[in-house]
């Protein structure tokens, strides 16, 4: 395999803004997908009355996705450029599948945010940006897409840039860590070659921007933590959990433990990019096989770690949260869904311990009756089902979470302390 540095990239944005098309186009232009395959997709798409989805079909391979022209689950694709070996995760934009987007984004270092110029910032543009900030995305490349639909007008581009910049500020995403590119994923403008349709733009193409991404920072010096994204059964091999190594390394022969399922065994094989490898490290997407572990023993949301330093399982945990947008108020007893790494568990906010001034970080009020949008607070949380999570001080990669309720992301936070079972 390639010895270039590895880069995990999520493609995010509102439904139908062109994420899958962008990924398909990128893979096509970098030679990872041959022309005749696109041609085949074009025929299938037209047959289904979904003309225009030929590039999206590269990523949308499920029948139900193709029929509806909507991405449902995340899909990974590998491709390499001059600088990096990329694993690109195409996320769904539909509001019902934000839970899948979270899984995808939690595995990424950086992200491409696709915003259609003819539609501007929409609810999931907002939600995805907020989530990517909390899930540890470092840089955003903003593709202002579908420029062909607005006649490549610079003014429309600038309006969208302005709108997105406002949004980034709103969620306190450092705007210096964002770059903007006018694109048409469908026509191929500014994807891998500078477009003649945008003479007013002299910045990078998307591909250049990808190559110019900073190298992912080496993770903390923590033990192995590998959140399980999926569990497959593969004939000839058996049960194969897959996921991205957040910290530490995994080698064949290691004795590992899965929490909170609380099972373990010896690692027999580790596979990366469809090849067997002796060991894998932070940022690597792996599939592996553990002696004695069956399909029903482990599940998405488990974390794999060394048997002698297993992932923590929280009876309760204390965390600092920031309420992003909540239609009413949050009180003790509130039980929304928490997303942490690949896990999704209903948790009760058992107590609101104190509020903090979001600007200074100082303690404000002890035991307030409730908190609401814009508030920051330290709370004690009780998962309703076992949850493996770590203190952000010890393992930041596994210490943050997002809180969702009523179909929207209402808050996000970091774990301060885990009280183990």
């Amino acid at each position, binding site marked *: 395999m390639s010895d270039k540095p590895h880069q995990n990239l999520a493609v995010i944005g509102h439904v139908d803004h062109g994420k899958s098309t962008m990924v398909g186009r990128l893979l096509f232009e970098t030679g990872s997908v041959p022309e005749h395959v696109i041609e085949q997709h074009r025929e299938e798409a037209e047959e289904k009355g979904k003309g225009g989805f030929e590039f999206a079909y590269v990523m949308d391979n499920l029948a139900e996705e193709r029929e509806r022209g909507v991405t449902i689950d995340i899909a990974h694709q590998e491709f390499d450029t001059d600088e990096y070996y990329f694993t690109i995760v195409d996320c769904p934009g539909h509001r019902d599948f934000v839970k899948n987007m979270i899984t995808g984004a939690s595995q990424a270092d950086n992200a491409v945010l696709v915003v259609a110029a003819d539609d501007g910032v929409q609810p999931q543009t907002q939600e995805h940006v907020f989530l990517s900030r909390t899930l540890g995305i470092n840089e955003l490349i903003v593709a202002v897409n579908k420029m062909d639909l607005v006649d490549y007008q610079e003014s429309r581009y600038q309006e969208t840039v302005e709108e997105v910049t406002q949004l980034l500020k709103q969620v306190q995403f450092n705007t210096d860590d964002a770059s903007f590119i006018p694109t048409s994923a469908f026509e191929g403008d500014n994807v891998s070659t500078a477009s003649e349709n945008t003479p007013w733009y002299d910045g990078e193409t998307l591909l250049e921007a990808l190559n110019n991404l900073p190298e992912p920072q080496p993770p903390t010096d923590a033990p192995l933590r590998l959140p399980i994204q999926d569990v497959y059964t593969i004939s000839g091999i058996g049960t194969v959990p897959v996921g991205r190594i957040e910290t530490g390394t995994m080698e064949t022969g290691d004795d590992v433990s899965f929490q909170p399922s609380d099972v373990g065994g010896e690692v027999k094989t580790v596979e990366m990019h469809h090849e067997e490898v002796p060991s894998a490290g932070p940022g690597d997407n792996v599939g592996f096989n553990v002696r004695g572990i069956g399909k029903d023993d482990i599940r998405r949301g488990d974390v794999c770690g060394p048997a002698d330093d297993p992932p923590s399982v929280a009876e309760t945990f204390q965390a600092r949260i920031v309420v992003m947008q909540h239609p009413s108020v949050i009180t*003790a007893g509130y039980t929304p869904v928490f997303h942490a790494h690949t896990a999704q568990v209903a948790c009760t906010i058992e107590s609101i311990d104190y509020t903090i001034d979001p600007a200074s970080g100082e303690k404000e009020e002890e035991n307030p009756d409730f908190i609401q949008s814009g508030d920051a607070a330290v709370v004690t949380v009780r998962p309703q089902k076992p949850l493996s999570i770590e203190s952000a001080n010890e393992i930041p990669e596994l210490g943050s979470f997002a809180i969702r309720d009523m179909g929207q992301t209402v808050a996000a936070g970091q774990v301060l302390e885990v009280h183990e079972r």
Partner: protein
Amino acid sequence: MSQQEQEKSDKQKYDFRKVIEELQEYEGSGTQLVSIYIPEDRLISDVAAHITQEHSEASNIKSKQTRTAVQDALTSLKDRLKYYDVRPPENGMVMFSGAINSGGGQTDMITRVLESPPDPVESFRYHCDSAFLTDPLEHMLADKGLFGLIVLDRREANVGWLKGKRVEPVKSASSLVPGKQRKGGQSAQRFARLRLEAIDNFYQEVAEMANDLFVAKRHEIDGIIVGGPSPTKDEFLDGDYLHHELQDSVLGKFDVSYTDESGLYDLVDAAEDVLAETEVMKDKEQMNEFFKELHDGEKATYGFEQTRRNLIMGSVDRLLISEDLRDDVVTYECSNGHEEREVIDRRKNTSDHECSECGEVVEGDDENREDVIEHLIDIAEQRGTETKFISTDFEKGEQLLTAFGGIAGILRYSTGV
């Protein structure tokens, strides 16, 4: 039901519940606690005759203590019957009497009569035991409505009940449907076919789970509600996987993103429209309005003191009280004429109180102690404020009790209190 009647029935249910809870705590040392359920069409004279007969049969009871206790109870009940003319009040009535253990080998004679329960008493029942028979009454007070809930996507499914106001997750299943990652070497067609098969199998499994749970209750069920992210629930319902008799009870399908247990709760929220007439939605609407006012309005108040002050000002439109609130309020007046109140758990003894204005310690007096709910309702009634009892069987109802002390109010106008 008119608003006033509704309110009356809420208050009445509360009173009933209170008596039932009291009765449940009592115990007789022998088979000596008498419960009588009387339907509305039963002649009082018949009941009296029945009691007279039981009284004479009781003389055969061996234990003198029990014999006396039973006969005393029956005499007491017969006395009570004198208040009624020919027939009992609407829906009938339920009478309880007996000598209960009051600790230290002592007994207390108690008699309680509940008139016009929420549902008609179905049949005459005479019951003598070491505990009072309260089950039939509890049954009447239980929330009505039974809905089957199903949430599913291709990964997992959960089925459960909405019983009255409570969501009860019952069973779950997770699927073997492969995700998007096709494994190397497998052809696209083969992958797609295997996947379709796996999906079909999974839908069958979900249907079986639902059938197991719902078919037996199909005559009691008020409806079935199905939820999940976009395409799955449609495929599931269109595919006739459910038992045909259940198919007809499906009231609707709704978009919910989660398909674990929390999806069942989301489903009840999403199905607001088809559940509009149910009791849970009525409670939910009240609480939603209260939460919304807390967030972006000024017309909300909570906690005993604040709510009481608003009630007295006449600014409360609706008083919201948690059904599970079990507190008393004690009023203290110090010698300087400062009147103050403390809310205490019903099981605790009245304690002394330090006046916050002059520091004087005022002795607690049980005379000045009363049920916090009755205290507030009295004020509410004088001011024309509606009272709503809120169940703790759903999230915001639980929050009313745990986070807001079980007492809140939606105001007519902002008062700044």
